[in-house]
């Protein structure tokens, strides 16, 4: 796999582009937000994506997936990013789905993944407990009780938790907060006694939630991966989810860039197009360079996963470090160059601005991933 889209991927991109342009202009996301929609995305559209095979891109054919890779998924996520579609790829596919794909045995996969692929099952992953991303900062406790585990704790920033059918919960079976060892992953049903789910509205219009778990009982057969070694699954899930998020981010900031470029070519001030001002020309030319470099690095991270390279972690952190640095740069300049109108909720550029900040800080910001990259590179 190279750094450019293959013929098949180009076809997929054109399909996805037409689909989202027709069925999901940015306006749709605003309506969902403003109507305080109970679901927060469109279940119908999600099922349509299931029928098109997009939800199942990563999953094995045996559970109804297409068994393709991050190159293909990235194409679809990029188009989602262009129109800010809030459908639950992150929660259901990249986090929850990947946890079951990478940590679940065959019976669990056969039980849960077919409905995921068709768009009929929503999953999510509950891991975060504090503000800044820190994958092992988990205090929620799970204790063994015969053939069951009992989980008690709090989780925040659980995406789409309010409509999830199953929630993969990361809890501590040993050790203490901050340690990589001693984590385990449990599949918890949404209706499990002792589990309370509170919906939160996020700045980007997406759907967050926080959970309270009080002695929630989980069957020992519903553990993903190995008890105490859940971080092995978790790390792999985070890398893949991060690369998916990067693909979406590239779509979003490329769109913000193109809209700003167009604005420079059309908006007049002082009797001339503002795109004639050299200071703005230089700034947007530099943004273009940032964008191109980032696109290359993200594509390389997709390839790293799809080809099973041994530098997946490095490539992932390189991609997210760059995306999280470039996103606020482009989004900030997009608002600034739009001027006052960019401050209004009516102008869509602000929606990109907010979404890109949320993505920037999710799954590790630029600081986190530069640190991890440096560590992996031996300094």
């Amino acid at each position, binding site marked *: 796999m190279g750094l450019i889209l293959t013929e098949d991927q180009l076809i997929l991109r054109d399909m996805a582009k037409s689909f989202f342009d027709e069925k999901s202009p940015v306006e749709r996301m605003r309506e969902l937000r403003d109507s305080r929609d109970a679901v927060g995305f469109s279940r119908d559209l999600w099922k349509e994506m299931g029928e098109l095979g997009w939800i199942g891109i990563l999953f094995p054919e045996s559970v109804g997936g297409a068994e393709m890779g991050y190159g293909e998924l990235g194409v679809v996520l990029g188009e989602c990013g262009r129109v800010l579609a809030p459908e639950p790829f992150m929660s259901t596919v990249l986090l929850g789905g990947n946890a079951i794909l990478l940590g679940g045995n065959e019976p669990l996969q056969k039980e849960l993944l077919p409905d995921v692929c068709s768009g009929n099952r929503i999953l999510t992953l509950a891991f*975060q407990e*504090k*503000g*800044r*991303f820190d994958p092992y900062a988990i205090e929620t406790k799970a204790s063994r009780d015969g053939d069951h585990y009992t989980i008690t704790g709090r989780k*925040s*920033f659980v995406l789409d938790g309010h409509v999830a059918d199953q929630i993969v919960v990361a809890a501590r079976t040993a050790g203490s907060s901050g340690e990589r060892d001693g984590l385990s992953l449990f599949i918890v049903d949404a209706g499990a006694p002792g589990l309370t789910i*509170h*919906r*939160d*509205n*996020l*700045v*980007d*219009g997406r759907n*967050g*939630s*926080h959970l309270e778990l009080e002695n929630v009982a989980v069957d020992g057969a519903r553990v993903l991966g190995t008890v105490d070694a859940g971080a092995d699954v978790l790390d792999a899930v985070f890398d893949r989810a991060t690369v998916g998020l990067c693909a979406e981010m590239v779509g979003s900031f490329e769109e913000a860039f193109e809209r700003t470029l167009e604005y420079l070519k059309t908006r*007049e*001030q*002082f*009797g001339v197009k503002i795109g004639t*001002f050299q*200071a*703005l020309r230089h700034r947007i030319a530099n943004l273009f360079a940032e964008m191109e470099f980032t696109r290359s690095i993200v594509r390389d991270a997709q390839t790293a996963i799809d080809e099973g390279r041994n530098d997946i972690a490095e490539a992932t952190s390189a991609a997210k470090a760059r995306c999280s640095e470039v996103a*606020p740069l482009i989004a*900030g300049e997009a*608002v*600034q160059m739009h*001027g*006052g*109108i*960019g*401050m*209004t*909720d*009516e102008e869509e550029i*602000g929606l990109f*601005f*907010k979404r890109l*900040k*949320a993505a920037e*800080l*999710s799954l590790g*910001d630029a*600081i986190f991933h530069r640190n991890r990259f440096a560590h992996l590179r031996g300094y």
Partner: protein
Amino acid sequence: MSTANLEEFRQEIRTWIDENLPSELRVGTRKDLPKKLLSQWNKALISRGLVAPEWDTEYGGGGLDRKQAGIVKEELNAVRAPKLRTFGVAMLGPTLLEFGTEEQKREFLPQIARNEVTWCQGYSEPGAGSDLASLQTRAVREGDEYIVTGQKIWTTGADKADWIFCLVRTEPDAPKHEGISFLLFPMKQEGVKVSPLNLIDGSADFSQVFFDGARAKASHLVGPLNGGWTIAKRLLQHERTQDGGSEGGITGAMKDTIFDLVKREVGLDARGTLQDPTIRERLAQQELEQLGLRLTMRRAGEEMRASQTGRDIASLGKYRWANMVKDEQDIAMMAMGAQGLGWSGDGFGADQLERTRAWLTTRADSIWGGTNEVQLNVIAKRVLKIPE
């Protein structure tokens, strides 16, 4: 006034503040202050003549000289009194004092000094942002009135304002800077429609204002006909000086400082050092920038008083201030991580939600009151005198 007398005056003011400013209001300018107490405090200020301390008493002001007025300001700042400055006091007042007729001063200034009438500012238009002088709102003379037609945008408090000071085009065929006049007229009349603007931070303090045959008395035109541009620029200088000089801006209104917030969200290690070295460095840079701005503004004041020639740094202050307050909220977002991504819901603390909104609000600081780009243009041309 002698130094001794000034010191006596300071004691007087201090005592007066002690007696009149309730402790609940000594928390800086915040949106959630108790209305009743605010109204009491407002009345006290009015009766002591401290709404507009430097104006002559005949116009309802406090009749203080500059040094006395400075002492009042210092003492109010020292106890973190909420700022109640209005468009009327801060912008229109000084403009009328400089350019208004005696009749205009007598008609409008006392109302302003008693906080009886609320003003809004009719400057920007959808097609005239940075290039303010290209405004299109027309005012046509009809007998002893002007009939105003057009549209303004970014009008703060237009929905609550009683009157507007408004830039209008009175001579369409003149070069764009030479056909503008500065006109006052009431907002509560047929022919004026206000439509609030929703902003990205969820606020709706700004409005679009539509004029369709709105009426203004011809005697309420300030300065010469078609001479409004000079007045408009002068008024913007007042605005610029305010921004650059204000310490902290939106931050002054927050429950805790950026330093408190970051320490709490990121945590200190055993040696009292912030856990994250990058955020620590960003924070130090933020503090150094605050220091640089504060000292430079103070230096500019000293230069002015000593009549030393320095380069004019109002634009510079506005420009750096805007970047500084934006950077401050960026740091806050970085420190809060996912906890900074809330819009509503009890998964987020009230202070976290407030910071997130502030992060969005401050994006405007490099746009309004002259964009960063305009300030840099001004510095290059006027301050550094590089020919265009």
